Each structure stands twice: as C-alpha cells, then as structure tokens.
C-alpha cells in the first residue's frame, strides 16, 4: 500500500513537472525523417547529422540542422549511379560534450550512413574524428573552425573557414577599424572553438596587448569578467563563446556599462544574440560566412519554410532571422549530394575517395577542398548588431592579404 502511494506520488511529481514543461519548446527534430513523399519504394541513402541538440551548443546545432532539413525538403532525392535514391537524414545528438561525441558518432556509423555532416562546435568533431576514421566514414564539417578537426583526421573535410583566418580577420578589424590597443579575450575552458579562436586572435593582435581569461563550464556569473575587462582598461571585448553564454554576457555588459565593443566569431551570427542585444546599448561585431540578403530567393524560401513549420520555428529561436550556420548547413547538404553523385555509390569508402575533388557553388560561395580537406575560403563578412531594430548591419568583407 505504502509503495503504491509512493509510486503514485512519484508519478504526480513527474506529471507536475511535465505539465510545466508542456508549454515549452516543442520536440526537437525526430531522430530520422524520410523526406520522400512518393509512395514508391526508392532505395534510401542515409546522411548522418552529427550535431549537438542539447547542452551549451544545442541552440546553435539546431539552427545548423535547420539548413540541412530545408535542403532535404527542397531536394529529397539524389541520383546515384543511375538510380534515384531517397535521402534520409539520420540524427545523433553529441550533446555538445566531447565524451558523448564518439558514441554518437558510432550510432551514426552503425546505422549505415554514407557520410556525415557536422558538427557545430569543434571539440566534438575532434573527439569523434577517430571514430569516423576507424570506420572509414567521411565527414564534412559545417562550421567547426578549429584547424585540428581536419589536420589530424583523414576522413574529415569542412566547408567553412578556419580559426587562424578568422582570428586574424577579427584582430585586424579590432586594430584597424575599432582602433583598439588592448583586447580582453574570454574563452570557455576546454572549448576548442572559443579557445582556438582566442589563441589565433591573440597571435594576430599581439600577446602583450591581450588579457586572456577562461571561464569554467557551468559558469553563471559573467559580471566578474566584465569587471575584469573594465579594470584592466581594455578597448575591445573578444568573447567568441557559445550563444548561451553570449546572451548572458551581453545582458551583463549592458547593466554594468561595459564601455567597449564586443567582438566575436561566426557562432554569434545568430538571432539569439540579436534578441539579447535588442534595446541595450552594447556594440557587437561578428565575422561570419553569410550576409543575409546575398541571395534573396534563398532567403525568402527558407523563411517561408521556417515560418510554416512550428518545430523549425521553435528551433530557430522563435523568429525567422537567419543564422549563418543555417545557410552553411544548407550548403553542406548539397556538397554531400555532389559527393554521392560523384562517387556513384552509397559506400562510404567510395564517397571518401571522391570527396577531395568535389566542388559546389553554394549560397555562401564556391566550395572546394584543399589537400588536407579544408575549404578554400579567403573572405569573411563582418556584421554589426543594430540594437534598435535587432538585425545585423553589414559592415565589410574582410580578407587576409
């Protein structure tokens, strides 16, 4: 009797909590969805989506997936070796965590994917590289910018620019455009993305003029870091951290009157940042892959799709402001299709063999790989947050001479 009572109470507790949560964001994308609408049984080719759906980078990962899903809606089939295949996206959540990444990668491999896209965040890609390599399954990094992703792993390719490039662009921008002489750099401990980017920024900016600090995982108090930057009289606040942390940093920068521009990398090109910055007096500049408006037709199409799909809208943070990572995800999908076509087979080994020579002209520009598998990209967009309207204003296209 007691046990029954206890169980009942436990259930009530669970329900109480669930009820609170039911009004929340709707479910993230289901694990696998076949885009094929036709009833005839085309054979299926699987593309793995190795992205964070939870954890620190969960929001960014979801936005990146959106691009792939939209592309999958537009082009649900691919012709490989004369046979039309339905493309199925298979998802695995790496939970933004390096220790969960290898297992997530393994689930994709075991489910028979021909190649893998992702991930948002470099650490998980580095961590999973070995798993992909030992299975011989090729992976295309979408926005993982740390050099180590491809340098150590033969099966990893990527379509984005690299941290040494992005760090230098940002450092030059800080020095030349913002006129900064002393920079405060903030990274997350153990995070290869922010750590790597800060490192290359400091290299380009000059180590003597930089204050570099790292905050531990699970930090909630960013006000001290703002105070640190103020106390050390820096001119620019460089914090290419996850959007979760970013939103809080922006809030604190506002309440504590930071008094210097905030600079960040491609992850900050997200509506999370825009929402956080709207109505504040914080000056934010980012470098990114894509400038909204560059391809009007594409913009209109994807916005319509996002607005028409409640799940997609929720995953995009509730509005249709495009994140660069979404566009990158979109292009990555087509690069994958090109590779499948060129391989003429769904065997990962064949795909891997042809990948180095695959090229594609995407929304974010022409994509081709160099000999270590990195994208040949030499330009980045710099954008500034308009805190009144809550949109990005284009500043300049930056290259490294």
């Amino acid at each position: 009797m007691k046990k029954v009572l206890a169980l009942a109470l436990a259930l009530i507790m669970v329900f109480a909590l669930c009820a609170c949560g039911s009004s929340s964001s709707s479910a993230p994308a289901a694990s696998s969805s076949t885009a094929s609408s036709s009833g005839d049984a085309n054979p299926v080719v699987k593309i793995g989506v190795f992205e964070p759906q939870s954890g620190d980078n969960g929001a960014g990962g979801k936005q990146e997936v959106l691009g792939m899903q939209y592309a999958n809606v537009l082009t649900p089939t691919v012709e490989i070796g004369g046979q039309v295949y339905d493309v199925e996206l298979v998802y695995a959540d790496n939970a933004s965590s390096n220790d969960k990444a290898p297992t997530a990668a393994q689930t994709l491999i075991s489910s028979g994917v021909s190649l893998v896209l992702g991930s948002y965040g470099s650490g998980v890609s580095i961590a999973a590289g070995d798993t992909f390599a030992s299975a011989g399954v090729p992976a295309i990094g979408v926005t993982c910018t740390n050099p180590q992703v491809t340098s150590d792993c033969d099966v990893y390719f990527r379509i984005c620019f690299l941290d040494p490039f992005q760090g230098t662009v940002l450092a030059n921008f800080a020095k030349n455009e913002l006129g900064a002489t002393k920079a405060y750099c903030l990274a997350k401990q153990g995070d290869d993305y922010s750590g790597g980017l800060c490192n290359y920024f400091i290299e380009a900016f000059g180590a003597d003029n930089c204050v570099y600090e790292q905050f531990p995982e699970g930090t909630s108090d960013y006000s001290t870091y703002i105070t640190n930057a103020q106390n050390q009289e820096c001119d620019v606040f460089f914090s290419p951290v996850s959007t979760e942390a970013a939103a809080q940093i922006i809030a604190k920068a506002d309440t504590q009157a930071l008094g210097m521009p905030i600079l960040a990398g491609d992850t900050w090109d997200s509506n999370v940042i825009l929402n956080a910055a709207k109505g504040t007096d914080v000056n934010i500049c980012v470098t990114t892959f894509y400038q909204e408006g560059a391809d009007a037709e594409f913009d209109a199409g994807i916005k319509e799709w996002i607005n028409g799909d409640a799940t997609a809208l929720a995953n995009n943070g509730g509005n249709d402001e495009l994140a660069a990572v979404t566009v990158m995800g979109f292009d990555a999908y087509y690069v994958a299709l090109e590779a499948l076509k060129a391989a003429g087979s769904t065997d990962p080994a064949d795909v891997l063999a042809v990948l180095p020579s695959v090229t594609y002209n995407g929304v974010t520009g022409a994509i081709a790989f160099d000999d270590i598998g990195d994208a040949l990209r030499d330009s980045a967009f710099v954008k500034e947050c308009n805190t009144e309207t809550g949109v990005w204003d284009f500043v300049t296209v930056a290259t490294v001479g």
Partner: protein
Amino acid sequence: MSLVRTVLPYIISGISVGGQYALIAIGYTMVYGILRLINFAHGDVFMVAGLMMVYLTASLPLYISIPLMIILTVLIGFTIERVAYKPLRTAPRMSVMISAIGVSYLLQNLALYITGGLNKNYPAIPWISDRITVLGMETTRVTVITPFLTILLVVALVFLINHTKIGMAMRAVSVDFETSQLMGIKINNVISATFIIGTFLAAVGSVLYFTNYPGVVPTSGAMPGLKAFVAAVFGGIGSIPGAVIGAFIIGICESIIKGLDTILIVNGAITEQIGLATFSDAFTFILLIVILVFKPTGLFGEKTTDKV
C-alpha cells in the same frame, strides 16, 4: 586606480551571490540538523524553481507566477521528502544519501527532457532587474537588495525557530531524534516543516539568483547547491547564522578569486594573467577541506561525541 575602487565591484557582486547561497544553505543546514542527511537534491530543487518560473511567466503575469512558483517548489520539496526520504528513515545513512543523489539525477534529467537540454532565459522581473548606480558602479537593483532580503528572511526564520511551537519542536528533534519522538513530537510533521521552509527559501533564492544570472540549464543548481552546502558546513552544520555567514564568506571569496588576476595586475603585484580564476569553484572545496580537517564542527557548530 585605487585598490578599493578595483576590489569594490567584486565584493559587491560577492555579497549578492553570497546572499543567494545563504538562502539555499539554510535548507541544507536545517535538513542536516534534523535528518543528518546531505540533501543533494536541494540544489536541483532550486534549479527546478528557476525553470518553473521560466515556464509560468510564459503564460501568466508575474504577480501570479511568482507565488505560484513558490508554492509549487515547496510542494516539490515536500513531495521529495515524503517519497524519497521518508521510506528510508530507518535505513542506513548511506542509503538515504544515495536516494538524495538519485533524486538529484532524476530532477536534472527531467529538466533536460523538458528543456531539450537548452538554456532557458529567466524572465526579467521589473524593478529588481533595473539598472542602478551604486558607489559609482553600474549594477542591477537585485544585487543590492539580496543581502538585505536575506538577512530579513533569516531574522524571521530565527524568530520562528525560537518563538513558535513548531520551531521548538525542530530544535528538540535536531538535538535528539528518538527522545523527541518519545516525548510525543510528531517527527514527520517537523521534518515536513523543515523541508517546506528550506524549499521556500530556495525558491526565493532562485528568483534573486536567476535574476542576477539569467540562464537556467539542468545543471544550474548543482554548483550553487554544493557551495551552499559547503557554506553550511563552514558555518557549523545545524547553525542558521553560521550557514549565512559561511555563505557570504564563500560568495565574496569566490568573486574576488575570479578577479584576483586583474586585482593583482592593476596593483602591480604580477604582470601577466596566471589563471587563478580557474580555482573559483575549487576554492570553495579547499575551504571546506581546511575547515573539516582543522575544525570539523565549523565556526558555530556544536561538538558531538560518539558513544561506544
């Protein structure tokens, strides 16, 4: 820049976070005083309180959602005690502690499920999250309010414990569990009351804490919870003023350590960053171990002896 001017922001921020830890620490110290149980789930109840606020404000106005959130949190605290700790009252202490860890695991996983593992932004509560200027520094009003509100609540609580019947019963139970039972004190009511007070304070603490640091994730409660427990041990477990003082000390120290590199550089003690901020969390535990080794009863704790 003068030393005071440099250090002051850290101290103010430390006092504020210390006050928030204090509100959590009271729950730990009261429960430990009575049940001799480290309620590992307490920090997670604090997180759940934050999360409920996020969801409640999505559809309800603040003047309804705040009281409703507090009531629901108290209810959860009460339920956890009844479901997870009461059946184990005669079991070894290790079992109860394991049950507490299990509850903590469950709450975190539930939160993970509900939020989808994503960061939830805490709603901005008007007035207390307004930006104000104190001693020439920009900050939010909540920073200033927290220590006063904490002390007010603690005074009320001490009054409750010293001058009401239930308070007297609590003190009796914490001194001797069995004897109080024999004297006709309804142990279960006292324990429930303890949990209700503890979770009430944690719920209030969550409003202040998350207004200050507005991101709620499933693990948000774990660290503040542990730190609050350390504060309770530091002050002498079972002692409410001890827990509060311990919490303020931990809050201030932690905040200063995060800025220690900067303080030292600005004052010319060192020339480059040495990464001391890495130890901001670890410092709490260093403090804990020092106190456990040199004064296991804490600052205000009473000595107990084992009977052979």
